């Protein structure tokens, strides 16, 4: 009963292994061919997951399974979000990688990392989760430092590697403690065992859950585990930044929902306030720091920290409001497209003009009209401006926080903090738009990379179309949301 993850593993794995072999065998001059192979494999995978949903063969958000992988709608939603971002990343790389060395290895690493992300989203066993987590992480360390003659790219990769290796070491220590307490690595059996845990072992169980929060929190960019994130997002090649910000971060949320939210419920802990405090700190520090940035990538990196805070609101109020986890999953899907599109737009600017500094993008609206339009709409969607998709997921999240007010006193305050942060974020998004459209009157139009235009058109259709008519996505999210029942 776990066909979907295995099919994705097969399709992407074969393409990912074949690409470097093709490179050695044929020395292809026409490097777009490698991107075409990668895109083909990704589209087949998305099509297969989508077909499972359309044909109704997928079980709704089950979370638990006695197997190592669960073929449920929860994993399917994350898989679709991550594979869309991988498609963005590969498409955006076609123009970025035109004059770079080793394109086959580059696309192959993106595919291998995508397999890891998808398996993290589907895994219901701690061993599987750890292996998938490393399969996701190790290729991204290489990708972040792929421009190896560039000191900034190398520095970004080294910082990312040190913090990423630390986070996986912490996760494996947490797994070892949970295994010692319960004698099993299957998540549902672990949670059953935790509900009947001896009271004297309670501090150890709390420590283990804390280690998981810290380990996954590094990838999600939660405050206080966020210090590597702006440096890495600024220094890494922008298509890879899109992959990191929009996809690997979501894998952290998938793992957190499967283990931490359910595990803490099993321990009967009042953990919601702790997650609420982390959520408020994360969004406030992210948005306040973003205002002071002068570099476009770095500004969006801080905004990405802020959005991790919004998604965490849903996790914090999950036991008190049915819409909590739903809003989180909806925002995961939307944020993947919005942030992916924004970073691909920046990669287009880097290819065409070789600038990311905020003062150098004056008149971008005249120089690169389609890229600028895509960037503007994705920024408005990130801020949560009404007819766009970001508005609906934020509305659901903030509504869940208000609804939880009848159970916990701090629920409404969470919503107030989030609304104030959204208003704050509109300030620096507006600053970018002002630079693009109201300055640099004499700018001339330059040639825009075709691959970036393709990503912009798709994401514009997604953001505007599903903003005006959000019903299908909301139904999809409702199906994927796990019910808050212990096994």
């Amino acid at each position, binding site marked *: 009963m776990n066909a979907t993850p295995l099919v994705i593993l097969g399709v992407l794995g074969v393409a990912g292994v074949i690409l470097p072999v093709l490179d050695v065998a044929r020395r292809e001059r026409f490097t777009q061919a490698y991107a075409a192979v990668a895109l083909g494999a990704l589209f087949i995978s998305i099509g297969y997951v989508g077909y499972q949903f359309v044909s109704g063969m997928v079980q709704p958000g089950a979370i638990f399974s006695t197997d190592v992988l669960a073929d449920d709608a929860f994993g399917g939603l994350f898989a679709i979000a991550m594979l869309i971002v991988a498609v963005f990343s590969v498409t955006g790389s076609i123009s970025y990688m035109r004059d770079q060395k080793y394109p086959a290895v580059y696309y192959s690493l993106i595919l291998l990392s995508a397999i890891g992300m998808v398996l993290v989203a589907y895994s219901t066993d701690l061993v599987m989760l750890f292996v998938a987590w490393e399969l996701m992480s190790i290729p991204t360390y290489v990708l972040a430092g792929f421009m190896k003659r560039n000191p*900034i790219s190398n520095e970004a*990769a080294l*910082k990312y590697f040190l913090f990423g290796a*630390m986070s996986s070491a912490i996760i*494996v*220590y947490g797994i070892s403690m949970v*295994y*010692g307490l319960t004698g099993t690595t299957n998540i549902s059996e672990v949670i059953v065992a935790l509900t009947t845990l001896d009271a004297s072992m309670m501090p150890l169980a709390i420590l283990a859950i804390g280690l998981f929060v810290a380990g996954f929190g590094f990838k999600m960019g939660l405050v206080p585990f966020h210090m590597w994130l702006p440096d890495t997002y600024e220094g890494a090649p922008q298509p890879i930044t899109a992959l990191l910000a929009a996809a690997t971060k979501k894998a952290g949320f998938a793992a957190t929902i499967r283990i931490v939210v359910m595990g803490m419920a099993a321990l009967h802990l009042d953990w919601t306030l702790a997650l609420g405090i982390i959520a408020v700190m994360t969004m406030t520090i992210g948005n306040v720091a973003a205002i002071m940035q002068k570099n476009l990538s770095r500004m969006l990196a801080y905004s990405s920290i802020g959005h991790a805070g919004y998604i965490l609101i849903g996790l914090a109020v999950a036991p008190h409001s049915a819409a909590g986890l739903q809003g989180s999953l909806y925002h995961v899907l939307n944020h993947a497209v919005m942030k992916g599109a924004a970073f691909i737009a920046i990669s287009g600017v880097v290819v065409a003009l070789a600038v990311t500094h905020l003062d150098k993008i004056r008149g971008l609206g005249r120089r690169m009209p389609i890229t600028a339009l895509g960037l503007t709409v994705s920024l408005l969607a990130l801020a949560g401006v009404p007819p766009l998709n970001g508005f609906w997921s934020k509305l659901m999240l903030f509504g869940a926080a208000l609804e939880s007010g009848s159970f916990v006193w701090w629920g409404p305050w969470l919503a107030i903090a989030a609304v104030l942060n959204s208003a704050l974020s509109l300030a620096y998004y507006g600053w970018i738009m002002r630079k693009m459209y109201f300055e640099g009157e004499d700018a001339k139009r330059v040639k825009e990379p075709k691959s970036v235009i393709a990503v912009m058109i798709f994401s514009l259709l997604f953001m505007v179309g599903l903003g005006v008519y959000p019903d299908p996505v909301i139904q999809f999210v409702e199906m994927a949301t796990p019910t808050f029942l212990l096994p």
Partner: protein
Amino acid sequence: MALIEFVLVSVALLGIGIYGLAVKRNAIRMLFAVEIIINAANLNLVAFSRYVDDSGGQTLALFSIAIAAAEVAVGLALVVVAYRMYKDVDIANFRSLRG
């Protein structure tokens, strides 16, 4: 030997690893510290696996040793590239990204 002795050694190794990560700024030393934490977890896993009489923990320990080797290979490659550029492996000197 009792289980608690293995666990005490493992916790001591975890402490050494966290100390190394928090205090040292040499990239290779930090890599060592990460490896020490992973090995502390492996020791835990094998000891618990023997204690609960279940082979799952030893399986995970084997996976984790193999994956740690892959991780170190990538990490050392990054450190070598950094050394060629900066003639140094002290991450306190990598300061081109800030703000």
